[in-house]
């Protein structure tokens, strides 16, 4: 029984960790790579959840694609919307406190970013409450109440159940991250984003339009986090204030993984999922979040640069 409980918690941890990892990757682009503090990241995720919800339930995706495929089509359609949202928010607001304009300032404009994005977060939360109401909703799919059974393993004793919608969410998360990691590491666009983050002035001398690079990165970060939100929405009911719960997970994941590392952020989120679920074996559920932060502090204490952090300073 012990072993079975452990394997079940481990599985739950990996599944939750994959989605957390994906959210963290979205923030890692904005905070880790472009070094912009965005406190509204959780609320971008909330918007992604509602976008998926309305596309699914009200705008015909459910009717067209059914209850099994529909939720994922809705998530896919919500992604470009959130990209556009992030791009525009950056163009109109965030660009005033980032990039070449603030590179020379003390703290690279971080104070202004903090205040600005906190303001955006509050507007989105309260605006969301007015627009969407505070009743819990979810993207309903029968997949969330059925499971694959793995096993029985080791003779007849042990088997592990994988919730179908969570299993699919984990696979989609990992695939999304792989695609993004390739984009950032290999493509001209990805390299120009990293160059613009490293040194906006030198990037300008290369012919890179730095403000444009920042807008793209911000939009991508919002879109990635919204994919995580949409996937989460197939399992968990939510309301307009859900962002607050997750923005902390996201920052913890990015710092754990090591600032600036996309893959690191994924492992940071994964670590949080694992600790959260495994701690239920020994701790009452109310202490789950406390357990996460104890482990967080421990890791940051032992390895301040995070799992994948590089000790290369910016010149």
């Amino acid at each position, binding site marked *: 029984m012990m072993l079975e409980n452990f394997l079940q918690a481990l599985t739950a941890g990996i599944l939750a960790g994959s989605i957390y990892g994906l959210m963290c990757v979205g923030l890692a682009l904005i905070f880790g790579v472009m070094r912009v503090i965005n406190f509204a990241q959780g609320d971008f995720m909330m918007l992604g959840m509602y976008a998926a919800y309305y596309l699914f339930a009200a705008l015909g995706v459910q009717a067209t694609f059914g209850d099994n495929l529909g939720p994922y089509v809705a998530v896919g359609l919500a992604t470009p919307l959130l990209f556009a949202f992030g791009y525009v928010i950056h163009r109109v607001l965030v660009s005033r406190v980032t990039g070449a304009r603030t590179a020379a300032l003390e703290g690279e404009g971080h104070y202004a970013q903090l205040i600005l994005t906190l303001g955006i977060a509050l507007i989105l939360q309260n605006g969301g409450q007015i627009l969407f109401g505070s009743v819990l909703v979810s993207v309903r799919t029968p997949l969330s109440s059925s499971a694959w059974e793995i096993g029985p393993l080791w003779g007849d004793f042990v088997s592990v159940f994988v919730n179908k919608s969570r299993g699919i969410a984990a696979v989609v998360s990992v695939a999304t991250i792989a695609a993004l990691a390739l984009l950032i590491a290999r493509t001209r666009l990805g390299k120009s984003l990293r160059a613009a983050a490293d040194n906006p002035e*030198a990037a300008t001398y290369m*012919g*890179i339009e730095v403000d444009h690079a920042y807008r793209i990165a911000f939009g991508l970060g919002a879109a990635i986090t919204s994919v995580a939100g949409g996937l989460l929405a197939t399992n968990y009911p939510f309301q307009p204030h859900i962002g607050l719960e997750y923005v902390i997970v996201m920052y913890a994941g990015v710092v754990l993984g090591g600032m600036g590392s996309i893959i690191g952020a994924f492992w940071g989120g994964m670590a949080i999922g694992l600790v959260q679920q495994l701690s239920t074996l020994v701790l009452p559920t109310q202490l789950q979040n406390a357990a996460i932060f104890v482990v967080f502090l421990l890791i940051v204490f032992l390895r301040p640069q995070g799992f994948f952090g590089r000790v*290369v300073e910016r010149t």
Partner: protein
Amino acid sequence: MLRIEALSAGYTAVPVLNGVSIAVDEGQFVAIVGPNGAGKTTLFKTISGTVGLMAGSIRFLDTDLASVPPHRRAHLGIAHVPEGRQVFPSLTVMENLEMGAYTEAGRRDWTSNIERIFAWLPVLAERRGQLAGTLSGGEQQMLAIGRGLASSPKLLMLDEPSMGLAPAIADFIFERLIEIRRQSGLTVLLVEQRVAEALESADHGYVLEMGRVVLEGNNKTLRADDRVRQAYLGM
């Protein structure tokens, strides 16, 4: 190729540059020398557009640069190798060079450029997979130069390539620059504190002091000038 006329520019209401006029013809090697704080870096930044122009004009080929946004100037053929190297530390050597080739011309000529750059600066080939932030100062300077060359520039602007380097390394880099220019015939605008070397190899030189051109001429007249000999050549 480059015509700067009565240029004033700076960071605050008080301009750093006051009525500077400089001309660089195609194929020329022009050096700008002057003491610390004279405004040499500010002049380069104004040409590249990261410092705003207050008065006067900058024409490059047939274009008035006032109407060209900073990031488009590289695409016109201006490569700026900035003071203090400013390589991209979290990118590899190869990725830094690829960013140098961000311009249309750089992409078109990538294969032949990279071959030439590696031949001129072999250390970059050896270190191609290394993060630029972990290179030594001299290697970073060579990378910054290689990155500038990768754009297939029409004008190469170098801001103190010897800054902060041991004399032997600085000599080596200087010798490489002369060789690169000899083989490529590139138009070069160089800012340098090593006045003797700079004036010796340049076709034409300007002395910039307190934001004004106080002296100009070809290398013979400048090196023969008493003020230059006293102030910069220590003779």
